[in-house]
């Protein structure tokens, strides 16, 4: 046989070699394409800037979580979260709009941020990630459905639930005990609005004219009280309230009278500061405000008293359905690159894992959003009595009350803040005639709409 002529055996061997080479090439291609499924690389980490509202002006559990993420999951997958601003739930919306509009002096628009659904709508849902596209149905089932629904803007899940809050009554225990001892008012008295207003009246008299309570979200208390008593459809078509709704107006008058008499006040900014300075004995605020309560009350002569914070559910009407607010911001991701979107999803999943979600909310005074976390809350060891009291109140609230979401109308918080600012001005000099104050407050209520 000549040199260049292949034998049948040789041909078979060559074919086998070619097949092996082809298979190896295919395997390499598969390996490369499998690796290409992620755009993240620990060797070239992507940075996501973030604004949040957890612990503004105070010790921030979210910052600690971010640090943990950056050094664990983030380091392994190539993601860095950089917190560039801490704000609060009512201010972050306008700040985001400023950033989006490149207002001079505003910080750059973050990749991740926490805000309400109406803030997300104002930013343009088309500019935000639809979390539904990145979570499977099974994954979504792990979250409390009502909280997920709260984050829907149109058809998109633009606001991913991380934690939810409700409004609670925070009482300075030491002061209240002295008051209670002298007047017979107890914590049980504060379970209803009638009892609350009676206690406020008694405290005003007992303390020599000091207000009993500072209320952070007066309008929400008015709404829920009215709704419990049967008020319905009190939002008008023009994006504000229907002032012909008798039950709504009756509820407003109930609270306005208490303010007019100096029994309660609209909080200066946050009720906790007024409790901490001894101006009031209790405050109605977000469950998350527990993070901001000092351990002591400090008086003008620099003497201090232990706070002994006790947390009660929001007072309810004697009759009617018991309602509480369902508040709290959620996580949004600004649409930029697919790599950042992938990183945002990794962070959102990590942040809301059952145990982590529980540990986070237990430090911040929120309700968890993960079903597993909710189930474990009863056996969780809280860091102090105040937190234990808070979660006891939250548990009672969840058992006895129905949660109602806040109105998600455009510019809601701007109008509400204007209303509160007006009431603060009015309550500085209270008229002798309660009716005058009530009427003026109604006029103010109408005017900010």
């Amino acid at each position: 046989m000549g040199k260049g002529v292949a034998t049948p055996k040789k041909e078979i061997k060559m074919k086998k070699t070619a097949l092996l080479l082809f298979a190896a090439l295919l395997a390499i291609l598969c390996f490369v394409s499998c690796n290409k499924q992620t755009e993240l690389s620990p060797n070239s980490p992507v940075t996501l800037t973030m604004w949040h509202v957890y612990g503004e002006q105070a010790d921030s559990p979210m910052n600690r979580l971010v640090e943990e993420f950056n050094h664990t999951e983030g380091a392994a997958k190539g993601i860095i979260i950089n917190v560039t601003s801490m704000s609060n739930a009512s201010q972050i919306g306008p700040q985001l709009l400023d950033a989006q509009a490149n207002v001079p002096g505003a910080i750059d628009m973050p990749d991740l941020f926490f805000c309400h659904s109406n803030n997300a709508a104002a930013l343009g849902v088309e500019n935000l990630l639809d979390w539904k596209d990145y979570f499977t149905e099974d994954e979504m089932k792990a979250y409390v459905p009502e909280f997920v629904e709260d984050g829907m803007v149109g058809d998109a899940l633009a606001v991913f639930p991380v934690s939810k809050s409700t409004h609670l009554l925070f009482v300075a225990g030491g002061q209240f005990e002295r008051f209670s001892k002298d007047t017979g008012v107890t914590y049980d008295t504060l379970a209803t609005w009638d009892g609350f207003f009676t206690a406020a009246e008694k405290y005003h008299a007992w303390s020599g004219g000091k207000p009993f309570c500072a209320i952070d979200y007066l309008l929400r208390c008015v709404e829920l009280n009215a709704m419990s008593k049967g008020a319905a459809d009190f939002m008008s078509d023009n994006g504000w309230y229907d002032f012909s709704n008798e039950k709504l107006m009756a509820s407003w008058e109930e609270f306005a009278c208490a303010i007019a008499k100096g029994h309660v006040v609209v909080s200066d900014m946050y009720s906790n500061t007024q409790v901490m300075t001894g101006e009031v004995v209790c405050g109605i605020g977000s469950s998350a405000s527990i993070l901001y309560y000092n351990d002591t009350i400090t008086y003008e002569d620099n003497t201090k008293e232990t706070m002994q914070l006790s947390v009660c559910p929001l007072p309810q009407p004697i009759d009617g359905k018991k309602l509480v607010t369902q508040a709290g911001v959620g996580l949004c991701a600004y649409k930029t690159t697919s790599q950042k979107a992938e990183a945002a999803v990794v962070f959102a999943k990590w942040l809301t894992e059952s145990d982590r979600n529980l540990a986070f909310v237990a430090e911040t005074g929120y309700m968890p959003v993960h079903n597993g976390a909710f189930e474990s809350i009863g056996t969780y060891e809280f860091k102090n009595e105040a937190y234990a009291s808070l979660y006891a109140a939250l548990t009672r609230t969840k058992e006895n009350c129905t949660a109602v979401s806040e109105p998600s109308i455009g510019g809601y918080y701007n109008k509400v803040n204007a209303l509160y600012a007006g009431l603060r001005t009015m309550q500085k000099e209270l008229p002798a005639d309660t009716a005058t104050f009530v009427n003026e407050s109604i006029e103010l209520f109408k005017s900010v709409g």
Partner: protein
Amino acid sequence: MRFPSFRNSKTRHLRDKLFSYMLVMTIVILIVLGLSMLMFGEFPTTEDTTVASLNLQMEVFNREIVAHQEELAMRSTGLSESLTRAIESYLYTNSLIFDDLNDSPEHLNNLHSHFLSTVSDALLQSDSSGAFVLLDATVNTGLDHASLSKSGVYLQKSSPSLADSTLLLLRGNAKLGKENGFMPHRKWGLEFSAADFPSYDTLLQTSSDTPLDKAYRVTEAVMIPGTSERVMLAAVPLIGKNGDIYGICGFEIAETSFKITHAQPTMLERMICLFSPAGESIDMSKTFCCGTEDGYFLPPSGILHTKQEGELCIFENADNKYIGVTKEFSVQEGNNFMLSLMIPYKDYKDAVATSTSRIVVLVILLAVFAVSCCYFFSKQFIAPIMKGLEQIHRSEHGSAYSGIHEIDDLFAFLAEKDKDYEVTIDALNSEKEEMQEKMEKVQAEIDRLSYSRKKEIDPDDYENFLIGIKSLTKTERNIFEMYLAGKTAQEITETIGIKESTLKFHNHNIYEKLGVSSRKQMLRFAAIYSSSEGGNI
């Protein structure tokens, strides 16, 4: 394609030799070029580029920090002078001495009212996150730890955004704050604790004749109690006309604000800038950090140990290793800081590996290029020469044209030589023919003479001669033939190595055997014999 062979042989192909020379020349040029570039710094190493890049970044960072600190120092001294005047004016108006402020809420609140507007104005004009004034006085000296409690005002910006001018009252009278439009901070407190303020005692012990700008001090990063925000406090004392020190005032730099304001523009993917108290190591809990403008920010934690390696510094803790540069920064004597710029050590090693692999690839590419060029050009250069030689081999150079001057000259030269050669051949042929003719004439003459001589000699003598030849011994025959060849006696003795007397002895025997009496007669008989026998005896 046939590559030049480098086989070990005595003779080598012209093209192989040319290829070798060209290759050597190219290698030498590349080496000299590389060395020159290295010598003149045109071929920087990764360390060189890293040092240059980080030094440039450091220059920018340093300028920012220096400018910021100078601004804060200037504003602090201005605030101190303004507050000191206000305190002294108030004390004078109310006929008080400074110690009278202790346990006097009324006087302290009056002073605080004035402080609020002065401090808030200064804060809003400054590039800082907070401003404060602490008086060496307290509203209640009867309390525990009253000596550490200091009355004053501390305002903070509510957000690092310049678009938000809301100020919060962190320390001070809450009621006064609210009256002036400053809501209490959520971690509000009435008075300061001097224990929370690292430089308080040092500032209070400032010599009264020290200029305010020389008394300016910046603290390490400290945590405000109850918050997660670390701050650096830049402060000067409040020095009265009589040299009394009333307290301190200054500005706060919050960590978030520092991080946003000083984020550096850079081409480096990952870079961390540190502003730390000077020392052998860096305690991250006392250090401010910022990242890049692109958003990268992942500072290390714990203690970073530093070690200088050439122009670069290694920063290392239990988990991470970085490399970078440092620069000392002195706020005032005894108040020293260190600025550090660092990148993850892994990034540096990756850059070194990338640079090395690039050089290797470059060298390989250059080598392949050089070999290819040498091969191509040597082939191009040699081709006409080889063709010319081939033509010469085939004797086609007469009418050939190579297009190369030297080869065409060689063709012309060889053609000329061919012509000369032909002329010479022709001349030689003519001469040969002439000689042939002459030879034929001479032979005819010889034959004629031989014939006539033959007739003159005795036939018996000649017959004896012929018989005698056969009776010669070997030596005698040899000598006889040498005589016939025309050799002399001396030549014969030298040729066969005998003495003259021996030769004479042989001559005598030869003559006797041939029947001749002399050599002349012997040669004559020999000539006749040669001509009649065809020339052979």
